[in-house]
């Protein structure tokens, strides 16, 4: 029997707290997932649901004094990377795990050339010579489809459009050939046509490099087009996790159902869009038990106790955290 390879990224029972008004509140609760190579896992949810915080926790980039990991473990390729020394973590960030941010307009240093910024991780992590790193930067710019890369290597970020800058960000994140890419709302700030191009590029790079991708988004359309597996988050909890077509075909948690009903779709008239009533409570005011209960149409008495994340299908790939809808298969 061959040994099963460790997942490229594994998150187990991650719990993260953030501080507001001198009180620590759980903003990511007991989140677990694995991503294997060539797989895209999407974290979906509204603003403040803890999806970006999950990414920052994995990268150990929580601002000190504001956020802290209080439980769980993160490992990459079977190696524990949570709770390790800063110096050790610096060797993993950018080298073994790349990250792409939401704002390509501001995530590049305005006074450094694009070529240098793409070459910099190679200079820093791989000790390449300047010449070799810049040569590699041109290849990377070609790889992310930046036209006439060799001519543009000495250009500054302000000479690039938003979509091109996001390509630069992707090239930077992939410079050291990491196995894991965390993309935090990579297309949110882009025009719709550019979004599609950037997503197609990410998908292509993923196939060719065998990347494991953690995609963080609030856009279900993006999820539908690229994800293999989806984790829906609400109030720091994973409320539903399912393989890709399954989630859209059989949304089970009341929040997932509501989220899909609230999504504008070309095959439905706009009158059928149903907004979710109420708003996400502040962390300090989160209800005890199921955190969605204050907005849930199916609320019952037992919802004051926190439901477990239970499988609802025989294969055990579709999990739901709900007393009412998440019964055994």
């Amino acid at each position, binding site marked *: 029997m061959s040994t099963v390879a460790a997942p490229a990224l594994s998150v187990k029972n991650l719990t993260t707290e953030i501080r507001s008004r001198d009180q620590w509140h759980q903003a990511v609760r007991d989140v677990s997932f694995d991503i294997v190579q060539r797989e895209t896992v999407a974290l979906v949810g509204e603003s403040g649901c803890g999806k970006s915080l999950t990414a920052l926790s994995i990268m150990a*980039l929580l601002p000190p004094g504001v956020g802290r990991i209080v439980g769980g473990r993160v490992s990459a390729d079977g190696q524990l990377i949570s709770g390790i020394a800063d110096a050790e973590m*610096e060797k993993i*960030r950018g080298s073994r795990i*790349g990250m792409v941010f939401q*704002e390509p307009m*501001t*995530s590049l240093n305005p*006074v450094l050339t694009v070529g240098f910024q793409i070459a910099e991780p190679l200079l820093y*992590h791989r000790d390449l010579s300047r010449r070799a790193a810049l040569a590699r930067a041109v290849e990377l710019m070609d790889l992310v489809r930046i036209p006439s890369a060799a001519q543009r290597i000495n250009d500054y970020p302000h000479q690039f459009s938003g979509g091109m800058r996001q390509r630069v960000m992707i090239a930077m994140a992939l410079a050291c050939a990491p196995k894991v890419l965390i993309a935090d709302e990579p297309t949110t700030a882009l025009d719709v046509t550019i979004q599609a191009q950037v997503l197609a590029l990410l998908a292509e790079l993923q196939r060719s490099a065998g990347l494991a991708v953690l995609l963080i988004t609030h856009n279900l359309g993006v999820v539908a087009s690229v994800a293999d597996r989806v984790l829906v988050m609400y109030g720091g909890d994973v409320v539903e996790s399912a393989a890709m077509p399954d989630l859209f075909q059989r949304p089970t948690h009341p929040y997932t159902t509501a989220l899909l009903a609230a999504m504008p779709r070309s095959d439905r008239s706009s009158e059928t869009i149903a907004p979710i009533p109420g708003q996400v409570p502040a962390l300090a005011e989160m209800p005890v038990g199921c955190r969605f209960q204050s907005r849930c149409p199916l609320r019952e008495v037992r919802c004051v106790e926190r439901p477990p994340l239970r499988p609802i299908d025989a294969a055990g790939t579709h999990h739901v955290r709900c007393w009412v809808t998440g019964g055994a298969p």
Partner: protein
Amino acid sequence: MSPTTTTVTITNSPPTRISTWSRIRTSPAVLAGVAICFTLIVLAVLAPWIAPYDPNRQGLGIQLADPSGAHWLGLDSFGRDVLSRIIWGARISLWVGVVATLAAMLVGSTIGIIAGYFGGTIDRVITMLTDILLSFPQLVMGLLLVAVLGASLTNIILAIAVTAAPAFIRLARGSTLAMRERDFIDAGRALGFSDMRIMFVHVAPNILDEIIVMGSLWVATAIRTESTLAFIGLGVPPPTATWGGIIREGFEFLNDNYLLAVFPSLAILITMIALNLIGDGLRDATDPRAPQ
């Protein structure tokens, strides 16, 4: 006819750096300042060849003689050629002004970036010490340091650098605080860069223009401080020619020949004006709120 493909490259905004340069280049005030400073630097560097006489050679003629064809700016109380002494004095003044300012820029900015970047206790301690230094009038501080260290060229540079550093600490700290919130700093961290690299490769070039503007203005202040120290007798010891020193000597013989004090004062005045023209021009050119 075959279809033609036209490639259009659109640059969304004109590069700010170029417009900064064009604003500097087209400002007559800045150009005048640059011309004067350039002349001064040439004079200072070429002093051994340009100065008509040895600045320390005594008894060239009648003591305190008026300007004449042989001695354009006259002679001092030892019969030394004043023009030669002023040209040689430019070396000291410019050297002290530039080196002290560069030292203050380098050390002050580094400390300021560290304070602004790390924040917390480090920042509080640095800010407190800076405030203490800033509470002394600059001249008093310089005086105190030279008095303690002893008057020599190195000590004067050191003293002036120490008095100038707090201004750079404050500037760099403030700019770094603003820079720290920028997304590209987080992006750098996500790429695994060390704090050192983020501070000095990513933050520093972004705040450099402000530091250079400040530096150009501080060169003038440093030269003025050096001259003042020399005037009150805490400059580079005689017989070395310094502008402040010549004024001091002239001041003693004000009733006999007031020109001896006037010429070095003019030299200082012209230098101050030139440096401030450059500094103000740079400031205006890099000011984002300035009308385009």
